[in-house]
């Protein structure tokens, strides 16, 4: 039988079943644990989350410095000892600070669970912020900062956040060289005491979970009490800049970086799943309008992407690319042209079908295995949402109409509202 290569194989439906895989347990003192038990290897992931992100800082660099100093010395271990013992047990520890949350994630072989929890308690709740280590950290960070400021992508992104959220709000505030002299151990200890407290912690545990996990967590974390209860008093308000276009000159650059976008709704808004869909269509996958036009038809860039991101107090959308300096006007015009088309012309069924199926495939990847599921869980949990969000998203992916896409494009991509930040 001849093989008919021009005829595609049949495509079978592949909807993912979204169930609630996280089991929830509370320790004696109320610390919530969320357990996602699955996987083929004897390895676990634990993520410890605090509301200690950039939004909480009252000085630039405070949230990140406090987080990065957690592994630089504790009551019972020096910085050097901590690094060495973490490596000795084969533990992968990463610290992280986002705009709203901060914390750390560890991956480790199950057999070491008790040692891991003992070390994490040291790191999270008994740091001592030694001055010598802090000085070294600030020197290293300043060096990284100065290298980053050589990159047009960073210059454009930093300015983008400032324009969208304002220079005084922690979401938008830029960092300057002078800020690296402003940190001292007592400031970090103060921030730590306010925000890294047991009653503000949540733990997401995933992998082939060791049977003693809850018992050990109780042993190491269940008896802790918070030293002080800090009542927050947020003073900063989000206020975007009036100037919509801004260019940051970078001598010697061979490309211009673009960041075009604005503040928008976040995950709690009922339009958010539809906005996600629109974003994929515009610039969220390889076959997107922007990628097809600006990369695949015109060869103007190595890549162009659009993102929609959710923060606690707002959301933002941004189109991001780098292109040759001489094509700056052309690239910007083409981006606005593509947005305009989505506001005017209904999306055809074929393209709609591609985006529906692509996004359904992405949903499967978001729940493929315990670690991916843990990240998806966090992505809704931190907004006070549950897995129903994903069910709503799935329904939107299946049923969104061309008219609804036009409505969303008009409502959320008003070109006059967009900031156009370029650097190069």
């Amino acid at each position: 039988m001849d093989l008919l290569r021009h005829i595609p194989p049949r495509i079978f439906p592949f909807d993912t079943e979204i169930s609630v895989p996280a089991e929830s347990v509370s320790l004696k003192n109320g610390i919530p644990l969320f357990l996602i038990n699955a996987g083929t290897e004897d390895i676990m992931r634990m993520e410890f989350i605090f509301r200690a992100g950039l939004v909480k800082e009252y000085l630039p660099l405070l949230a990140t410095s406090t987080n990065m100093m957690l592994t630089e010395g504790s009551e019972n271990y020096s910085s050097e000892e901590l690094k060495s013992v973490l490596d000795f047990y084969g533990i992968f520890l990463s610290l992280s600070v986002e705009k709203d949350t901060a914390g750390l994630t560890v991956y480790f072989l199950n057999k070491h669970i008790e040692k891991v929890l003992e070390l994490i308690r040291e790191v999270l709740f008994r740091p001592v912020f030694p001055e010598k280590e802090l000085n070294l950290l600030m020197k290293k960070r300043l060096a990284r900062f100065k290298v980053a400021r050589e990159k047009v992508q960073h210059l454009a992104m930093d300015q983008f956040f400032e324009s969208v959220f304002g220079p005084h709000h922690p979401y938008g505030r830029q960092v300057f060289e002078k800020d690296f002299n402003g940190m001292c151990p007592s400031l970090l200890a103060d921030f730590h005491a306010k925000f890294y407290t047991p009653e503000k912690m949540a733990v997401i545990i995933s992998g082939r979970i060791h049977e003693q996990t809850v018992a050990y967590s109780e042993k190491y974390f269940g008896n802790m009490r918070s030293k002080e209860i800090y009542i927050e008093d947020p003073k900063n308000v989000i206020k975007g800049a009036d100037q919509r276009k801004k260019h940051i000159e970078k001598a010697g650059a061979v490309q211009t970086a673009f960041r075009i976008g604005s503040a928008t709704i976040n995950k709690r808004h009922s339009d958010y799943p539809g906005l996600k869909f629109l974003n994929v269509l515009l610039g969220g996958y390889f076959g997107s309008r922007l990628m097809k036009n600006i990369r695949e038809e015109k060869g103007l860039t190595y890549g162009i992407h659009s993102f929609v991101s959710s923060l606690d107090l707002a959301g933002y959308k941004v189109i991001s690319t780098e292109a040759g300096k001489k094509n700056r006007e052309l690239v910007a015009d083409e981006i606005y042209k593509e947005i305009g088309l989505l506001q005017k012309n209904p999306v055809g069924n074929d393209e709609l079908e591609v985006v529906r199926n692509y996004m359904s495939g992405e949903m499967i990847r978001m729940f493929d295995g315990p670690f991916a599921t843990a990240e998806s869980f966090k992505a809704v949990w931190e907004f006070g949402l549950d897995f129903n969000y994903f069910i709503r998203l799935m329904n939107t992916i299946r049923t969104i109409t061309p008219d609804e896409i036009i409505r969303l494009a008009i409502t959320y991509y008003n070109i006059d509202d967009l900031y156009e930040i370029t650097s190069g």
Partner: protein
Amino acid sequence: MIHFSRFSLDNGLRVIVHEDRSTPLVAMNILYDVGSKDEDPAMTGLAHLFEHLMYCGSANIPEYDLPLQLAGGENNAFTNNDVTDYYLTIPAGNIETGFWLESDRMLEPGFSQKKFDIQKNVVIEEFKQRYLNQPYGDVMLLLRPLAYTIHPYRWPTIGMDVSHLENLKLDHAVGFFHSYYTTDNAVLTLTGNIKPEVAYDLAVKWFGPIPRRPVTIRKLPQEPAQSEGKTHTVEKNVPYDALYKTWHMGGRSSKDYYSLDLITDLLAGGESGRLYNRLVREKNLFSEINAYITSDIDPGLIILSGKLMKGINIDKAENAVNDVINELKDTTLTDNELEKVKNKFESSTVLSNTSILNKALNLSMYELMGDPDLINREVDSFRAIDRSIVRDTAIRYLRPENCSTLYYMSARIV
């Protein structure tokens, strides 16, 4: 333990299948045994450009991405000095779409002059974005030709120079395909939710009819042993001085491979490594410092890179690096330190095996080296290294005559 089945089709295509029922997806990996080392030295960058051209449709299918996205799939690819690798993940029920797409472009790609020109521009923008428009972005463009005199590892995968890309013609790409994209020059690996017998039937159906074409026999010049140390100094518009040192080593299958991997872990395995402890933490000479091996199939490199703290003299910094290197040749290694890097290697191997894509790529690479079961023996190979092997290996490789040093200086007045 990663179980797998292995078979070959009549046209020489090698197929490996590892079934993992815990995922609803299948990963499909096609590794072509061709990389930038196979390029004409006057036309570098072609292997990587060709990877882009493989996405411009094929003989019977006008577009690659569209049908894959319709089937819920996602894909990507990379090119390095040795290989070109294409991979996708797709819901298990639609894996046949992957077979259909990949077999058709192995049969014959479908790029036109217009698409060739566009992708050439895309790759030139990639060259600018990643190598020219970044501080320190051109390091590999400088370090490789310093270390290698004749082996094609002397240029990076992106190409030696933008002009090489600009001068490439459509015919070069067509010739490249016929020379290297052949059934017996590729490894097809499937991991995830697929039974070996299903994979076998689909491979026979879609890849079986592709005729075997003669593959161009590789004849690469072998790099002669380096007999004296080399240095090169550049001044660039960057904020800090940087130091790069590289030593020649054997290839991926050579007996010292794991020992040198372990040595770079001792030096730079995270913030408990010796380089960090001595040169960043204690002496504040560098703001960051790293060391790794290139994992090339032909004789590769051990690479050390560090950015200096402001105001530190580079000779002083280099002497301090040399002291740390020379300590490896003494007997200062404790059992505890050795155990530490072995434990870290073990957990990183287990972590890597939680991903069907990683398993697919690793199985393919080990098949290329002759034995996919090496994936199950990595940790044992690493564990077998003792203190005397470390010392002996350091003495044999980390010699000044075997070393090339690049001084990447800031042109700015501090």
